[in-house]
């Protein structure tokens, strides 16, 4: 069985008479060790899919198994605990806690794990080292550049040693050099640590790093990027990645 299995996965929002279907009966299997790039225009359901896999949102219909667990059936508190050991989530805007140092931000997910202070310290140090940001451990987020903040956020996603890393446009707010460095870091996590990686991106260079690229449109997978999208992707690749609306 695959690491992540989606069967007829559907997410629906109803607002009055309006029905929005960000994900429409999606079938998808992702193997352990995959490095998947997920592309598609704004509003095509990319974030929705990541949030479902992370157990942040719940599907309206269909089945979603991660490591064999039907996560849609877990209670909210069980899901929170499951997520803290299985999923590392990386955001476009980093979402570091501004009042905590880099070290403390990375330590945050470990404070709810039953481990000793000594082991916690060792793991935080190791995650900071892996993310290449150990020298800035006592800096606050406002003292870091965007690329450095994203490294701290990656260290935070790694520190609980989850098998799955989900990244929602991790380079969307970075310049080209920083983007390249972050993508290389993510690639190493995939090849050297064997993390399963799903990256939502607008940046076509990501596809050079990914082992596989999927395109979403209107909540469905499409085999090839349609011409219009290909053009958009191309122009986006000329500069910085676009942000979602």
């Amino acid at each position: 069985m695959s690491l992540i299995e989606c069967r007829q996965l559907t997410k629906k929002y109803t607002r009055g008479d309006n029905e929005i279907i960000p994900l429409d009966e999606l079938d998808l299997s992702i193997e352990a060790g995959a490095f998947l790039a997920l592309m598609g225009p704004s509003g095509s359901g990319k974030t929705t899919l990541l949030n479902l896999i992370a157990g942040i949102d719940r599907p309206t219909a269909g089945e979603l198994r991660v490591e064999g667990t039907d996560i849609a059936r877990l209670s909210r508190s069980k899901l929170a605990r499951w997520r803290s050991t299985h999923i590392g989530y990386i955001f476009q805007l980093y979402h570091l806690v501004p009042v905590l140092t880099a070290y403390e931000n990375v330590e945050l997910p470990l404070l709810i794990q039953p481990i000793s202070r000594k082991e916690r310290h060792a793991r935080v140090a190791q995650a900071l080292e892996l993310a290449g940001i150990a020298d800035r451990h006592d800096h606050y987020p406002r003292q870091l550049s965007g690329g450095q903040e994203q490294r701290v956020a990656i260290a935070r996603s790694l520190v609980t040693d989850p098998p799955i890393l989900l990244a929602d446009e991790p380079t969307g707010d970075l310049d080209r050099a920083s983007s390249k460095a972050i993508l290389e870091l993510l690639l190493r996590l995939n090849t050297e640590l064997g993390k399963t990686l799903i990256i939502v991106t607008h940046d076509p260079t990501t596809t050079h790093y990914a082992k596989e690229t999927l395109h979403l449109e209107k909540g469905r997978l499409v085999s090839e990027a349609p011409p219009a999208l290909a053009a958009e992707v191309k122009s986006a690749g000329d500069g910085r990645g676009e942000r979602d609306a």
Partner: protein
Amino acid sequence: MRLLPFDYATRNLGRSPGRLVLAVLGSALVVLLVIASAAFVRGMGSSLSLPEENSNVIFLGAGSEESVERSEVSTRAAEVVATLPSVRTRLGERYVSPEVHIALAIRTEESQVEGRLTPVRGVRPTAYLVHSQVHIVGGRTPTPGADELMVGGLVGGQLGVDASRLALGKTLLIDGRPWSIVGHFRAPHTVMDAEIWMALTDLQVVGQRDDLSCVVVTLDPALGDFTDAEVLAAQRLDLELTAMREVDYYGALARFYAPIRAMVLVTASLIALGGILGGLNTMVAAFAARVREVGTLQVLGYPRRAIILSFVQESVIVAATGALIAGVVGKLLLDGIAVRFSMGAFGLVVDAPVLAIGIAAGIILGIVGALPPTLRCMKLPVGQALRG
């Protein structure tokens, strides 16, 4: 325990120092108000309550049970009361205090305006035996016929003058006539603390009366009890007397003032409520700015109650700091301050129970103030919070 570090709460307070200072001062004000009202109610209550073992009986003119000021007791009746067998005797001295109570306009020498009405009590030396709460703290008791008087500890506050104006040797004017201050007494937590005392005969002259307002006696429990006093008043109808336990007399006064206390409490609660609502408003804004952070913490695996607890911690730290400031300010500025009421004055009492009420109010303020904005902030599904 899966909780956020305490540091997270304390450091978040530093995010916006201006707002922090305002929040601390705001809760200090609310708590100070609670302390002031509690001190008022407690001061008023304690000035009208006496220790349970008090065995004093007041003989008043029949029909004047509610006010000693309006009571008239004839000298003959006082002589009969003095013979009551169950009255306490010590070293040949009988504990019988015939008294005149009149409210007089008193002013200090330096003051140009009409004096304030102040309760004045004319007494014999036995009054100091019967009213054991009275302690002479300076000078001596007034000599009859020498135009001398003695002032209680709250008289300065009652007259609205500085204590130096009431120093020994200073003069007070009654109807334009000078009286010199020869003594200071204190009777904390009693109505007497706000009174001026002089010789009984002197006050009878000033008030142009030859009768008394009341006779207060101390009973000796070994010799008899209140029933003896009641029987005397009931049998000698010709004396036109009523006997009341001193405790009951002040109890009735306290009941008379109960509506004022209730009003103070209601006003204080309303203002405190307003404070909480105002505080809520700032907190809603402060917490709403952190919706995304709350979402992130939930993605990292923090249970909602850990996040709620941390937000409540923040707010309780603020409110408790305000409460401490209010406690110190209240103790320093409010304790003992005289509050004038229709007749006389009582001192605000800021003691341990009042401070405890203030601190408790502060903590409740912190919890109650934090919960609605926190819960509001948590109501959003995580996915939506992250997009916020």
